[in-house]
């Protein structure tokens, strides 16, 4: 239990739609250890996006307890949550979410801007991270001058640049062809081997298999896939 980076107990999320209360997540318990590569596998509407939002501190649970890096998340205000997102979590989105007018380098720099790091150090760190994902010769390119796979690599570099506690990926291959998707997954595996904790949300069983641990989510409930424990 000591080396749990992420620990959720009895997390419930309910939305109120008119008079009806819709429970999206039911009593979720989840532990993630340092160095884990966890895939959360589930069909659309299973509550996996909601779970990801809560893990990513973008949303707060209706009830339950959420600890991330020994910090109680469910009691923080907007400003503190912003700091947690900045320091502890690196997001990788399905649609890359790069700012189109910024160069690859500037996109990777962005989280460091919010972390209050000076320009010289920012440039150095971002350049370093871009070469780690194999884009050292594309740092001045804008997103529209990059292929889908390259864009996702920029997004991964952006997620990694603050050296977050966990890398949180939401369908990272969803917008890519199979071959490119595979390359991205190889990159994730490599990053994981270097010691980074990864939580990946996906509906694709094949993609989920690249992880070393899978949990299933269905109708708001989690179930561990025993074979991978």
């Amino acid at each position, binding site marked *: 239990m000591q080396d749990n980076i992420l620990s959720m107990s009895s997390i419930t999320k309910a939305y109120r739609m008119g008079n009806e209360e819709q429970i999206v997540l039911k009593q979720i318990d989840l532990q993630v250890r340092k160095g884990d590569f966890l895939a959360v596998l589930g069909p659309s509407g299973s509550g996996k996006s909601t779970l990801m*939002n809560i893990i990513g501190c*973008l949303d707060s649970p209706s009830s339950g307890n959420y600890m991330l890096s020994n910090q109680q998340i469910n009691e923080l205000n907007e400003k503190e949550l912003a700091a947690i997102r900045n320091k502890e979590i690196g997001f990788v*989105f399905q649609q890359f*979410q790069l*700012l189109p007018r910024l160069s690859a380098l500037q996109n990777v720099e*962005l989280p460091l801007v*919010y972390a209050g790091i000076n320009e010289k150090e920012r440039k150095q760190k971002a350049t370093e991270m871009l070469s780690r994902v194999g884009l050292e010769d594309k740092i001045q390119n804008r997103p529209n001058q990059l292929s889908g796979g390259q864009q996702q690599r920029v997004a991964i570099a*952006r997620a990694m640049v603050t050296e977050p506690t966990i890398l949180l990926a939401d369908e990272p291959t969803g917008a890519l062809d199979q071959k490119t998707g595979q390359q991205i997954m190889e990159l994730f595996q490599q990053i994981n081997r270097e010691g980074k904790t990864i939580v990946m949300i996906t509906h694709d069983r094949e993609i989920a298999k690249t992880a070393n641990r899978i949990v299933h989510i269905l109708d708001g409930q989690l179930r561990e896939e025993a074979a991978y424990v």
Partner: protein
Amino acid sequence: MFKENLKMSWMNVMNNKMRSALTILGIVIGVSSIIALITIGKSSMNEMTSEFELFGADKISIQVLGTPLKQGLVESDIEKLQEIENVAGVSPTLSGNTTVVASGAEKTNVLVQGKNDVYFSKSKDLVEAGRGINQLDIESENKVSLIGSAIAKEMFFGQDPIGKEIIIGGVSYQIIGTLKESNDFSGSSTNDSVIIPYTTSMGLLGTGYVSSVDVYMKNATNSEKITEDIEAALSEAFYDKKEAFTVMNMQDMLSSINKITNMLSFMLGGIGSIALFVGGIGIMNMMLVSVTERTAEIGLRKALGAEPKRIQQQFLLEAVFLSLIGGILGFFGGVLVAYVVCLIMGTSLILTASTVFLALGFSAVIGIVFGIAPARKASKLHPIDALRSV
């Protein structure tokens, strides 16, 4: 952190050049009309004020119509005016037309004005050569005169008229000085006139009544009290017949003209303010559209760790940039318009530092006032909703 936000906001403004340009048009028009109106107002007011000062701001003019029984002021009335507190001097004027003869030449219908020593001591630059009328001339009703530049040229061409004789209305006067050439601008040219002591002129013109008096004040700030005292003295002299005289206070006239021009400036400035207000709404509208358009960007920035305050600052800065650019362009536009108008009116352009600050301050305030609502809206967007809107 502020520097980074400044950069990002500037980039966003610049990335939408066409839209930014259209948005700031309202501000440009508003600021330029305000700047133009204020500058034109100030310039023309300055022109008027200096014209009036030339005429004499420390002077109160009395015009006497008189009554059938008493056609003007007599010497004792003038003495009473002299005794009023804070009066520096009284300069009565008697005038009439008569024939003058000098050097064998005759000139008919010459304006002869009776003045006193105060007139010469208070109005500088009157005498070209020789001396003005002094107190002794008044007391002893000396037969001395000063002649206008046109008369000097016509009757004493090529010679020095001072010390020579001139026959005015059949009586010989000694010329003690010549008057400086004056322009016709103020309508009181002395070029064709002859000035003699007013005591002497009473005999010459056959009247004991003075119809025009200028009262000089020691201090123009007391003008109201002095005007009241003069009016009181005059109504006593004319047995409470107020229609027998008019008192014109230059200071009052000046301040009422100032009041009118100020009011005009305010009114025109008000119209400009409406344009500014409309421009501000334009900025707000554009910023709201921008927030909606960039919902995903805002969500992403929040996911990457941007605090709500930073998002708010970024959007607020964009609004301020827009309106400041508008303000700067408007300032130059307004000055250009004012310059052209002043050129046409023939007045000189007055540009004060306060006008510059007004333009910049106004537009910055507009940016903040109309930018705050969209910026707050952006900062309050929930990151998930924002990211979901891709």
